[in-house]
Protein backbone atom coordinates (compact mmCIF):
# COMPACT_ATOMS: atom_id res chain seq x y z
CA UNK A 1 0.00 0.00 0.00
CA UNK A 2 1.38 3.42 -0.81
CA UNK A 3 0.96 6.54 1.27
CA UNK A 4 -2.04 7.96 -0.58
CA UNK A 5 -3.95 4.68 -0.40
CA UNK A 6 -3.13 4.33 3.26
CA UNK A 7 -4.33 7.82 4.19
CA UNK A 8 -7.42 7.39 2.00
CA UNK A 9 -8.25 4.13 3.74
CA UNK A 10 -8.08 5.80 7.16
CA UNK A 11 -10.17 8.72 5.95
CA UNK A 12 -12.88 6.47 4.55
CA UNK A 13 -13.15 4.66 7.88
CA UNK A 14 -13.72 7.87 9.81
CA UNK A 15 -16.82 9.42 8.27
CA UNK A 16 -18.74 11.13 11.05
CA UNK A 17 -15.68 12.61 12.70
CA UNK A 18 -15.28 16.32 11.93
CA UNK A 19 -13.22 17.03 8.84
CA UNK A 20 -10.82 19.26 10.77
CA UNK A 21 -9.87 16.49 13.19
CA UNK A 22 -9.43 13.96 10.40
CA UNK A 23 -7.19 16.33 8.46
CA UNK A 24 -5.06 16.91 11.52
CA UNK A 25 -4.66 13.18 12.14
CA UNK A 26 -3.86 12.46 8.52
CA UNK A 27 -1.32 15.29 8.41
CA UNK A 28 0.37 13.68 11.39
CA UNK A 29 0.58 10.24 9.75
CA UNK A 30 1.59 11.78 6.45
CA UNK A 31 4.46 13.63 8.14
CA UNK A 32 5.57 10.40 9.80
CA UNK A 33 5.62 8.51 6.52
CA UNK A 34 7.48 11.31 4.74
CA UNK A 35 10.07 11.42 7.52
CA UNK A 36 10.56 7.67 7.25
CA UNK A 37 11.02 7.94 3.51
CA UNK A 38 13.51 10.76 4.05
CA UNK A 39 15.31 8.44 6.43
CA UNK A 40 15.89 6.08 3.53
CA UNK A 41 12.98 3.67 4.00
CA UNK A 42 10.98 2.65 0.92
CA UNK A 43 7.44 4.07 0.77
CA UNK A 44 5.60 0.76 1.16
CA UNK A 45 7.80 -0.19 4.09
CA UNK A 46 7.36 3.26 5.67
CA UNK A 47 3.58 2.82 5.46
CA UNK A 48 3.79 -0.67 6.94
CA UNK A 49 5.86 0.63 9.86
CA UNK A 50 3.25 3.27 10.62
CA UNK A 51 0.77 0.53 11.50
CA UNK A 52 -2.37 -1.04 10.16
CA UNK A 53 -5.08 1.33 8.96
CA UNK A 54 -7.80 -0.67 10.70
CA UNK A 55 -6.01 -0.52 14.03
CA UNK A 56 -5.47 3.20 13.65
CA UNK A 57 -9.16 3.73 12.86
CA UNK A 58 -10.20 1.65 15.88
CA UNK A 59 -7.88 3.61 18.15
CA UNK A 60 -9.08 6.99 16.87
CA UNK A 61 -12.70 5.97 17.41
CA UNK A 62 -12.06 4.74 20.92
CA UNK A 63 -10.13 7.93 21.77
CA UNK A 64 -12.88 10.13 20.43
CA UNK A 65 -15.41 11.36 23.04
CA UNK A 66 -18.89 9.96 22.46
CA UNK A 67 -20.71 13.27 22.93
CA UNK A 68 -18.66 14.88 20.15
CA UNK A 69 -19.54 12.01 17.81
CA UNK A 70 -23.24 12.39 18.57
CA UNK A 71 -23.09 16.14 18.10
CA UNK A 72 -21.42 15.68 14.74
CA UNK A 73 -23.98 13.09 13.71
CA UNK A 74 -27.07 15.12 14.54
CA UNK A 75 -25.78 18.31 13.00
CA UNK A 76 -27.72 18.77 9.77
CA UNK A 77 -25.65 18.99 6.62
CA UNK A 78 -27.54 22.08 5.44
CA UNK A 79 -29.56 24.76 7.16
CA UNK A 80 -33.03 23.61 8.12
CA UNK A 81 -35.88 25.17 6.21
CA UNK A 82 -38.59 27.10 8.07
CA UNK A 83 -41.22 24.39 7.62
CA UNK A 84 -38.82 21.74 8.87
CA UNK A 85 -38.21 23.74 12.02
CA UNK A 86 -41.97 24.26 12.40
CA UNK A 87 -42.50 20.52 12.00
CA UNK A 88 -39.89 19.72 14.62
CA UNK A 89 -41.46 22.20 17.04
CA UNK A 90 -45.01 21.00 16.38
CA UNK A 91 -43.99 17.38 16.54
CA UNK A 92 -42.46 17.73 19.97
CA UNK A 93 -45.40 16.11 21.85
CA UNK A 94 -44.57 13.07 19.74
CA UNK A 95 -40.78 12.92 19.76
CA UNK A 96 -40.21 14.13 23.30
CA UNK A 97 -41.95 11.12 24.93
CA UNK A 98 -40.17 8.83 22.47
CA UNK A 99 -36.83 10.35 23.38
CA UNK A 100 -37.59 10.05 27.09
CA UNK A 101 -38.66 6.45 26.56
CA UNK A 102 -35.42 5.72 24.72
CA UNK A 103 -33.36 7.10 27.57
CA UNK A 104 -35.52 5.29 30.10
CA UNK A 105 -34.97 1.96 28.33
CA UNK A 106 -31.19 2.41 28.22
CA UNK A 107 -31.19 3.50 31.85
CA UNK A 108 -33.30 0.57 32.99
CA UNK A 109 -31.10 -1.92 31.15
CA UNK A 110 -28.15 -0.50 33.07
CA UNK A 111 -30.04 -0.68 36.34
CA UNK A 112 -30.99 -4.32 35.65
CA UNK A 113 -27.38 -5.27 34.99
CA UNK A 114 -26.25 -3.50 38.15
CA UNK A 115 -29.05 -5.21 40.08
CA UNK A 116 -27.75 -8.60 39.00
CA UNK A 117 -24.28 -7.72 40.27
CA UNK A 118 -25.64 -6.33 43.53
CA UNK A 119 -27.76 -9.43 44.14
CA UNK A 120 -24.85 -11.75 43.42
CA UNK A 121 -22.78 -9.94 46.02
CA UNK A 122 -25.71 -9.98 48.41
CA UNK A 123 -25.86 -13.77 48.13
CA UNK A 124 -22.14 -13.91 48.83
CA UNK A 125 -22.50 -11.70 51.92
CA UNK A 126 -25.37 -13.79 53.26
CA UNK A 127 -23.44 -17.02 52.73
CA UNK A 128 -20.44 -15.61 54.54
CA UNK A 129 -22.59 -14.22 57.36
CA UNK A 130 -24.40 -17.55 57.63
CA UNK A 131 -21.17 -19.47 57.99
CA UNK A 132 -19.91 -17.09 60.68
CA UNK A 133 -23.20 -17.42 62.56
CA UNK A 134 -23.01 -21.21 62.34
CA UNK A 135 -19.46 -21.20 63.74
CA UNK A 136 -20.51 -18.91 66.58
CA UNK A 137 -23.52 -21.09 67.36
CA UNK A 138 -21.33 -24.21 67.27
CA UNK A 139 -19.04 -22.70 69.90
CA UNK A 140 -21.99 -21.77 72.13
CA UNK A 141 -23.57 -25.24 71.81
CA UNK A 142 -20.23 -26.86 72.57
CA UNK A 143 -19.77 -24.79 75.73
CA UNK A 144 -23.29 -25.67 76.87
CA UNK A 145 -22.51 -29.35 76.35
CA UNK A 146 -24.58 -30.12 73.21
CA UNK A 147 -21.64 -31.72 71.42
CA UNK A 148 -23.64 -33.40 68.64
CA UNK A 149 -25.52 -30.25 67.75
CA UNK A 150 -22.25 -28.31 67.88
CA UNK A 151 -20.68 -30.75 65.42
CA UNK A 152 -23.66 -30.45 63.07
CA UNK A 153 -23.41 -26.67 63.19
CA UNK A 154 -19.67 -26.80 62.63
CA UNK A 155 -20.31 -28.88 59.50
CA UNK A 156 -22.92 -26.43 58.29
CA UNK A 157 -20.54 -23.54 58.94
CA UNK A 158 -17.76 -25.19 56.95
CA UNK A 159 -20.14 -25.97 54.12
CA UNK A 160 -21.34 -22.36 53.98
CA UNK A 161 -17.79 -21.01 54.19
CA UNK A 162 -16.68 -23.16 51.27
CA UNK A 163 -19.73 -22.16 49.32
CA UNK A 164 -19.12 -18.47 49.98
CA UNK A 165 -15.53 -18.72 48.74
CA UNK A 166 -16.80 -20.28 45.52
CA UNK A 167 -19.41 -17.58 45.24
CA UNK A 168 -16.81 -14.86 45.77
CA UNK A 169 -14.92 -16.15 42.74
CA UNK A 170 -18.12 -16.19 40.67
CA UNK A 171 -19.09 -12.67 41.78
CA UNK A 172 -15.69 -11.26 40.98
CA UNK A 173 -15.65 -12.83 37.53
CA UNK A 174 -19.18 -11.60 36.83
CA UNK A 175 -18.37 -8.05 37.94
CA UNK A 176 -15.23 -7.94 35.81
CA UNK A 177 -17.09 -9.43 32.85
CA UNK A 178 -19.87 -6.87 33.08
CA UNK A 179 -17.43 -3.97 33.22
CA UNK A 180 -15.53 -5.30 30.22
CA UNK A 181 -18.81 -5.81 28.41
CA UNK A 182 -20.00 -2.27 29.08
CA UNK A 183 -16.68 -0.93 27.79
CA UNK A 184 -17.22 -2.89 24.60
CA UNK A 185 -20.82 -1.65 24.41
CA UNK A 186 -19.59 1.95 24.48
CA UNK A 187 -17.18 1.14 21.65
CA UNK A 188 -19.97 -0.48 19.63
CA UNK A 189 -22.15 2.55 20.27
CA UNK A 190 -19.39 4.85 19.04
CA UNK A 191 -18.94 2.76 15.92
CA UNK A 192 -22.60 3.40 15.12
CA UNK A 193 -21.77 7.06 14.68
CA UNK A 194 -18.91 6.37 12.32
CA UNK A 195 -20.00 6.16 8.73
CA UNK A 196 -18.22 3.42 6.86
CA UNK A 197 -17.88 4.75 3.38
CA UNK A 198 -18.10 2.18 0.63
CA UNK A 199 -14.56 0.90 0.20
CA UNK A 200 -13.22 1.23 -3.25
Amino acid at each position, binding site marked *: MNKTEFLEKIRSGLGGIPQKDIDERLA*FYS*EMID*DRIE*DGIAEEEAVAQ*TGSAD*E*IIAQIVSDYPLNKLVKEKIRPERRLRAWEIALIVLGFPLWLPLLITGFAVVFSVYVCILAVIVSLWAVFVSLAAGSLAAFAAAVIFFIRGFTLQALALLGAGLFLAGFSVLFFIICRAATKGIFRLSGRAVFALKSRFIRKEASK
Partner: protein
Amino acid sequence: MDIQLKRGLLDVCVLAAIRNGESYGYKIIKDLKPCIELSESTLYTILKRLESSGALTVRTAEHEGRLRKYYRITESGINRLDEFRNEWKEIISIYNFVCGEDENE
Protein backbone atom coordinates in the same frame (compact mmCIF):
# COMPACT_ATOMS: atom_id res chain seq x y z
CA MET B 1 1.39 -2.28 34.03
CA ASP B 2 -1.26 -0.09 35.63
CA ILE B 3 -2.78 2.11 32.89
CA GLN B 4 -2.67 5.33 34.89
CA LEU B 5 0.98 4.78 35.78
CA LYS B 6 1.90 3.88 32.22
CA ARG B 7 0.17 6.97 30.86
CA GLY B 8 2.11 9.18 33.28
CA LEU B 9 5.39 7.49 32.33
CA LEU B 10 4.77 7.91 28.61
CA ASP B 11 4.03 11.62 29.09
CA VAL B 12 7.30 12.07 30.93
CA CYS B 13 9.22 10.09 28.29
CA VAL B 14 7.95 12.32 25.51
CA LEU B 15 8.72 15.45 27.53
CA ALA B 16 12.24 14.15 28.15
CA ALA B 17 12.67 13.61 24.40
CA ILE B 18 12.10 17.32 23.75
CA ARG B 19 13.85 18.60 26.86
CA ASN B 20 17.04 19.54 25.00
CA GLY B 21 15.43 21.46 22.19
CA GLU B 22 12.43 21.13 19.94
CA SER B 23 11.78 17.96 18.03
CA TYR B 24 9.28 16.40 15.62
CA GLY B 25 7.15 13.26 15.66
CA TYR B 26 9.40 10.81 13.87
CA LYS B 27 12.49 11.95 15.75
CA ILE B 28 10.69 11.56 19.09
CA ILE B 29 9.75 7.99 18.22
CA LYS B 30 13.30 7.24 17.10
CA ASP B 31 14.87 8.84 20.18
CA LEU B 32 12.57 6.92 22.49
CA LYS B 33 13.11 3.59 20.78
CA PRO B 34 15.93 2.40 23.10
CA CYS B 35 13.69 3.14 26.09
CA ILE B 36 10.17 2.43 24.89
CA GLU B 37 8.41 1.39 21.66
CA LEU B 38 5.78 3.97 20.86
CA SER B 39 3.20 3.69 18.09
CA GLU B 40 2.24 6.73 16.02
CA SER B 41 -1.30 6.71 17.35
CA THR B 42 -0.12 6.59 20.93
CA LEU B 43 2.32 9.43 20.32
CA TYR B 44 -0.42 11.52 18.74
CA THR B 45 -2.64 11.10 21.80
CA ILE B 46 0.22 11.91 24.18
CA LEU B 47 1.25 15.03 22.24
CA LYS B 48 -2.36 16.24 22.19
CA ARG B 49 -2.68 15.67 25.91
CA LEU B 50 0.59 17.46 26.68
CA GLU B 51 -0.35 20.34 24.40
CA SER B 52 -3.75 20.86 26.02
CA SER B 53 -2.21 20.71 29.49
CA GLY B 54 0.30 23.37 28.44
CA ALA B 55 3.41 21.21 28.85
CA LEU B 56 4.50 21.85 25.27
CA THR B 57 3.84 24.17 22.35
CA VAL B 58 3.52 23.28 18.70
CA ARG B 59 4.67 25.17 15.66
CA THR B 60 4.39 24.22 12.02
CA ALA B 61 7.36 24.88 9.78
CA GLU B 62 8.30 24.03 6.25
CA HIS B 63 10.79 21.27 5.69
CA GLU B 64 11.85 20.02 2.26
CA GLY B 65 8.77 21.48 0.63
CA ARG B 66 6.29 20.00 3.09
CA LEU B 67 4.97 20.88 6.52
CA ARG B 68 6.32 19.46 9.70
CA LYS B 69 5.18 20.06 13.26
CA TYR B 70 7.77 20.89 15.86
CA TYR B 71 7.17 20.45 19.57
CA ARG B 72 8.84 22.60 22.20
CA ILE B 73 8.76 22.06 25.95
CA THR B 74 7.34 24.86 28.12
CA GLU B 75 8.16 26.01 31.63
CA SER B 76 5.31 23.89 32.96
CA GLY B 77 6.63 20.87 31.05
CA ILE B 78 10.05 21.30 32.65
CA ASN B 79 8.38 21.55 36.06
CA ARG B 80 6.61 18.32 35.32
CA LEU B 81 9.92 16.58 34.65
CA ASP B 82 11.34 17.95 37.92
CA GLU B 83 8.27 16.73 39.78
CA PHE B 84 8.74 13.31 38.24
CA ARG B 85 12.37 13.24 39.38
CA ASN B 86 11.37 14.05 42.96
CA GLU B 87 8.50 11.58 43.01
CA TRP B 88 10.73 8.91 41.61
CA LYS B 89 13.19 9.19 44.49
CA GLU B 90 10.31 8.27 46.76
CA ILE B 91 9.29 5.37 44.56
CA ILE B 92 12.85 4.05 44.41
CA SER B 93 13.10 4.05 48.19
CA ILE B 94 9.79 2.15 48.32
CA TYR B 95 11.14 -0.26 45.71
CA ASN B 96 14.31 -0.83 47.73
CA PHE B 97 12.24 -1.44 50.83
CA VAL B 98 9.91 -3.90 49.10
CA CYS B 99 12.53 -5.81 47.14
CA GLY B 100 15.31 -5.55 49.73
CA GLU B 101 13.06 -7.54 52.07
CA ASP B 102 13.24 -10.61 49.82
CA GLU B 103 17.03 -10.58 49.66
CA ASN B 104 17.40 -10.47 53.43
CA GLU B 105 15.68 -13.80 53.88
